């Protein structure tokens, strides 16, 4: 079975957070966005592990900025969603919306 056929739930959430943040997507801002939207605070290590996996699959790319003293002399790593990543998000959205439709239990409510 093709393991890359679908995005895992957290991978999709992280990709969406990176897309929402645009040029300001780095570890801290992504974790903050996830906390704001999901009301759960993921560990920074989990965010990076997911981003590394997405980068290996070619769905995100990263670049290092200049090191700053307030980060102990360490650089920020900014992330961007690549074209295959964007395509994958659209594909996942299409599949999810298709599955969502015509489920009687999910009709007429927001919860």
């Amino acid at each position, binding site marked *: 079975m093709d393991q890359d056929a679908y995005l895992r739930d957290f991978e999709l959430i992280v990709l969406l957070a990176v897309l929402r943040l645009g040029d300001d997507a780095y570890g801290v801002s992504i974790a903050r966005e996830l906390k704001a939207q999901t009301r759960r605070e993921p560990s920074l*290590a*989990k965010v990076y*592990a997911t981003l590394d996996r997405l980068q290996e699959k070619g769905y995100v790319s990263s670049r290092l900025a200049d090191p700053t003293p307030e980060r102990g002399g360490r*650089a*920020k790593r900014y992330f961007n969603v690549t074209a295959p990543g964007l395509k994958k998000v659209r594909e996942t959205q299409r599949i999810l919306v298709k599955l969502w439709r015509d489920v009687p239990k999910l009709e007429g409510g927001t919860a």
Partner: protein
Amino acid sequence: MNTRRVPAAAAWLLKVFRVTANNPALIGDIHEEFLNGHSSIWLWKQVLAAIVFSIGKELYRHKLLTIRAILTGQVAVMLCSSALNVALRDHWLLIAVLSQFPSSLWILNYVFRILYFVPAAIAFMAGGWIVSRFHAEHRRALVPLFAIVQIILLLSVGELHRVIVDSITQPRFRWYLWNQSPLLILCPLAVLAGGYLRRRRAGRRAE
């Protein structure tokens, strides 16, 4: 100006488990958030998560090596344990008597009891050393994993497991559990010491 600093112990752990070298941006993020006012508990949770993810990633990437390390380490523990059992077969009674040496201080009683588990600790140390010796490049991930596997084995099979199960239903067995408990402390420490011994010697050789 913010004068908070990431504790030296946290920085040391991150360095030892290669998180700093593998992902400097993550350490920068932890640093930044800690200076922004997150608590020490938050910091330690992040540090532990970073170490667990770093070790997990290394093990996931080298699955066969991980299995091989656990098996070779386990064989080393079993061989060493058997050899010590044979070597000490005439002295077990003396060790048992010494380990039960009565003292008015409970902590001294506990220390004497540890004596009984020294041969087992040596076997665990040999296991840790073998894992480290034959998997030098990945020892930072494999030695802690081997220590965890030994704890799981101790808790799930053998004498300690039986005593734990018995002491849940029958309070009179809790004394035996207390007697066996030093093994749970000694086992991971011995494995890590065995792995660390190898690293120190390798480091000295490099100098």
